[in-house]
């Protein structure tokens, strides 16, 4: 078409109101509609899943945030571990049903036993004093016959040579995802693979979050990191920054394979908590072939990396990784097998949790995690049956949960009608309000100042009513904390012994918050009678640092101001973004702040270290954000951390908690409760806050799910009909007017056949 022609016809190309075009368009729309409806057949119209998946044994879950790392050496966030824990098998795992949390073997043949040695290498008795112990050795034997999931990294030709370890640009020209490699292979898991992963903790190209901690314990790991750094510089200078560094060529003193199925980890001193780390993906096996495969040139540009395509021996393997849309786990055909636990807690029998005892795992064939960033679509898809479980957001809480007369949470009638049930569990975490002990007002400088500040902190501890906070702002989902250790973790005490006597009185068998007068008396003793500085007469003003929040949090901040107002203390809220907030905490510029901690493992050490002096944030970059330090507490911590759970250890913990309650470096806040909703077809669910490899235990009644989905999602067609009627009714007078005006015109549209206008009257 020439330019002139284009000029003339352009408006009509864009705006095709011509009758013929309209007719054609209508035809296309009709055909499209038919195709669309056909595509939906066999499935509810609003089903987000293909009809081919109907009735299949699939678990459907949503995820909001895309995981950053799936390499077990790096992944630490809960949303990442939810995936890696199904794929990788560390030597140990938590028993699914038993409480308190109990470690059992996973890939290990049996539970490893710590062997203690002195400086001369002499074996010590198990009850030896921690000061005598120079080294601890864990010798771990794995089950033979475990095989990796099918993966191209293992694929070999008839001569046993790897097919995909020397890829050229031509080889990967048409490769866009891992499944584009046509061959896969597998091999048996060996002890060397576990050693390989421990070495990777020190790899200079990988940023393992636990390297700093493990370098303090695993013998030689710190030096190993420097060795690898040197090797990296030497090797990479010649071969580029992504070249493969074969860790098998660099031995590590603290981790070695002693046979095909046994390896040994050497720990500096005594560190009983190390066993818990052995249940985390950080200590899962990694085959060297996988690392060799992924470090080939060109694959990273196609996003085919070890960080995104894990290679494990667990019950599932990641077959589709599109973190923008969907992650799919499928049953690993090479999984060595495991049986559903045959023992649990007394309640578990009644709850039917042991009905599958002894049956082979996993029960579910496939897990489809779809990305839904917003809570509203997530919640509605759960109600429609397209997600099998859901968390409860604050906006849907009232719709989902009600409290019984006894104050117990249960699902609402609407949820009950859908067969939805509620599972609750106190999280192994704590949300607290911290005081910066370096602050002159709330921490104190001189001895007298510190004493005064302690009383001030105690007074505030009484005044801030966390029972009310939990009730109003957490919908009752939490229990006010009496100390840093949450329920379910050894060291936590219930009843009167577990009650904080600074804040509560024990009355009629239950803790009752002290009256505000007690707080006012403490405040006066602190030198601030009625909230006024006794020396200057100035009102006491305190500063509360929080991360920038939305309008929804205004009420909770107002509530907090009111709590301080009970003591006539003015609370100034300093809101800032998370980066600045962290910066303030690191530099010790905050006065009062809110923070929380989720347990890594079920040991009190994992909470009590948050107030250990040498872990101070300021100067040491530790996790002690309050910068609290008490010599007796620190001494007891050192003593306690190396002990096994025992009455002696409990005594020490009790003393430590007493010190903390007296010094009140935190308002102990509350331990949140997790609420989860599950459809009737979702079975074998027992909330387990520390173990993440739970999908293998779950069961889905697919028949019931399909029936309910059909029942709940019948398309409602009358609105379409009504819309068409309204449209027709609205258009009819307009069309009539249009036709009338057209008839009244002298010259009307050209006839397409002749291109000549109709003429009417005498106007030409």
């Amino acid at each position, binding site marked *: 078409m020439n330019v002139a022609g*284009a*000029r003339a016809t*352009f*408006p009509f190309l*864009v*705006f095709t*109101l011509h009758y013929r075009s309209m007719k054609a368009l209508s035809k296309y729309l009709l055909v499209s509609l038919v195709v*669309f409806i056909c*595509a939906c057949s066999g499935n*509810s*119209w*609003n089903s*987000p899943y*293909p009809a081919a998946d109907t009735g299949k044994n699939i678990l459907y879950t949503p995820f909001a945030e*895309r995981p*950053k*790392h799936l390499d077990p050496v790096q992944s*630490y966030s809960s949303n990442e571990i939810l995936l890696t824990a199904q794929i990788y098998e560390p030597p140990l795992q938590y028993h699914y049903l038993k409480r308190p949390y109990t470690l059992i073997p996973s890939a290990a043949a049996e539970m490893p036993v710590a062997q203690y040695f002195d400086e001369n290498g002499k074996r010590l008795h198990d009850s030896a004093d921690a000061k005598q112990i120079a080294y601890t050795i864990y010798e771990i034997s794995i089950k033979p016959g475990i095989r990796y999931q099918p993966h191209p990294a293992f694929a070999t030709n008839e001569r046993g040579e790897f097919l995909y370890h020397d890829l050229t640009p031509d080889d990967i020209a048409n490769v866009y995802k891992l499944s584009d490699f046509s061959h896969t292979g597998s091999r048996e898991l060996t002890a060397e693979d576990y050693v390989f992963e421990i070495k990777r903790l020190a790899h*200079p190209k990988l*940023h393992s*979050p*636990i*390297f*700093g901690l493990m370098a303090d314990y695993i013998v030689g790991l710190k030096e190993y990191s420097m060795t690898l750094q040197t090797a990296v510089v030497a090797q990479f200078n010649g071969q580029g920054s992504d070249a493969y560094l074969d860790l098998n060529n660099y031995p590590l003193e603290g981790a070695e394979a002693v046979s095909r199925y046994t390896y040994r980890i050497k720990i500096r001193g005594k560190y009983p908590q190390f066993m818990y780390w052995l249940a985390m993906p950080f200590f899962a096996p990694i085959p060297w072939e996988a690392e060799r495969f992924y470090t080939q040139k060109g694959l*990273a*540009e196609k*996003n085919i*990396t070890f*960080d995104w395509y894990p290679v494990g021996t667990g019950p599932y393997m990641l077959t589709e990784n*599109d973190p*923008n*849309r969907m992650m799919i786990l499928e049953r690993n055909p090479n999984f060595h097998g495991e049986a559903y636990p045959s023992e649990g807690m007394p309640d578990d029998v009644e709850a039917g949790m042991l009905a599958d005892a002894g049956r082979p795992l996993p029960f579910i064939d496939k897990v489809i995690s*779809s*990305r*839904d*960033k917003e809570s*509203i*679509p997530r919640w*509605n*898809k759960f109600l*429609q049956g397209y997600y099998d479980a859901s968390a409860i957001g604050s906006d849907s809480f009232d719709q989902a949960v009600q409290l019984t007369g006894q104050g117990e949470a249960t699902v609402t009638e609407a949820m009950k009608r859908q067969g939805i049930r509620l599972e609750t569990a106190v999280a192994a975490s704590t949300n607290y309000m911290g005081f910066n002990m370096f602050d002159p007002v709330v921490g104190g400088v001189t001895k007298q100042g510190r004493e005064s500040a302690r009383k001030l902190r105690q007074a505030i501890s009484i005044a801030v009513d966390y029972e009310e906070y939990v009730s109003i702002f957490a919908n009752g989902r939490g229990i006010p904390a009496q100390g840093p250790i949450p329920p379910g973790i050894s060291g936590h005490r219930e009843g009167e012994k577990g009650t904080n006597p600074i804040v509560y009185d024990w009355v009629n068998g239950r803790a009752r918050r002290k009256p505000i007068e007690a707080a006012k008396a403490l405040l006066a003793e602190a030198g601030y009678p009625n909230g006024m500085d006794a020396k200057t007469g100035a009102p006491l003003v305190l500063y509360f640092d929080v991360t920038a929040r939305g309008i929804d949090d205004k009420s909770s901040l107002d509530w907090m101001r009111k709590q301080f107002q009970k003591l006539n203390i003015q609370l100034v809220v300093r809101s800032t973004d998370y*980066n600045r907030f*962290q910066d303030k905490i690191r530099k010790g510029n905050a006065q009062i702040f809110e923070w929380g901690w989720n347990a890594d493992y079920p040991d009190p050490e994992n909470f009590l270290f948050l107030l250990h002096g040498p872990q101070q944030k300021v100067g040491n*970059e530790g*996790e002690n954000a309050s910068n609290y330090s008490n010599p007796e507490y620190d001494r007891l911590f050192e003593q306690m951390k190396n002990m096994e759970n025992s009455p002696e250890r409990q005594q020490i913990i009790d003393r430590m908690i007493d010190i903390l309650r007296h010094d009140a470096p935190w308002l102990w806040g509350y331990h949140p409760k997790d609420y989860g909703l599950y459809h009737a077809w979702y079975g074998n669910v027992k909330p387990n806050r520390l173990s993440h490899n739970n999908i293998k235990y779950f069961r889905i009644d697919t028949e019931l799910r399909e029936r309910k989905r059909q029942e709940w*999602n019948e*398309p*409602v067609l009358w609105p379409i009909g009504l819309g068409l009627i309204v449209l027709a009714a609205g258009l009819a007078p*307009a069309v009539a*007017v*249009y036709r009338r*005006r*057209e008839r009244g*015109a*002298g*010259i*009307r*549209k050209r006839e397409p056949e002749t291109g000549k206008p109709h003429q009417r*009257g005498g*106007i030409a």
Partner: protein
Amino acid sequence: MLNYIIRRVLYAIPILIGVNLITFTLFFVVNSPDDMARMQLGIKRVTPEAITKWKQERGYDKPLMFNDAVEGTEKFTRTIFFEKSVAMFAFDFGRADDGRDIAHEIKTRMLPSLAIALPVFLLGLFVYIFFALTMVFFRATYVDFWGVVLCVALMSISSLFYIIGGQFLISKMWHLVPISGYGSGWNAAKFLVLPVIIGVISGAGASTRWYRTIFLEEMGKDYVRTARAKGLSESLVLFRHVLRNAMIPILTGAVVLIPLLFLGSLIAESFFGIPGLGSYTIDAINSQDFAVVRAMVFLGSLLYIIGLILTDISYTLVDPRVRLE
């Protein structure tokens, strides 16, 4: 015309440098390289050594814009700003902080964005112009009056309301289409119906009024009176004369948008679970991923400039009087 286009392309270079400078400044006013490292390395157990190493590997261990520790031009070239900008102007977007290749992500996410934006754009253009012409045709009648009232009402409602309301009515109550999600190939169609309908409706108020104003202005001109005096029917006047003459302002608003369709919609993609570039940008802002934010802003500016050039070219197609010199 070629000279004109070359000149416009050259003008684009300082604009892109300026946009890059502003993006860089704004980003690093709010975030520091340490913040970025912490965001990527996590909250728990992050050591200062790990942060230093992370920054070194990604080139964030240098000064932002001026390096006092070196001599000569290196004071400017051995900085984060220079090193990151030069690569980007060569269309080497590098890697996101999570290690994924940005160019690859942009390529794969462009299609889902386009899958929503293009139907919304075309259908919207058709519907808005149709309704605007209808209101003009029935001007000064109850159709025109209530049409304007409806437009004002539609304009006054937040787009978020349309999204939530649409999801509630069409997906939750009537079960006609999925609430959110995306499929590959033709499976994507059923996921696009709702966002496209909502996209068209949410823009209807403002756009229809805008087109109506344009058409009314044209309707008052002499050539329209002449056409009527000649005895042409109202539809011929509207479609053959008014519409064609109103094309320049229509093109001004429409053609410039065409390249931007690739960038998707920030809110709609998040709510409908569409894995497009809008959603990618939001994720990058939330995770403080400067590499992605910078790449997306750069791409946005570039496409906008291309859109403006295309608009200029399109003027010459619809109006022979316009010459690009």
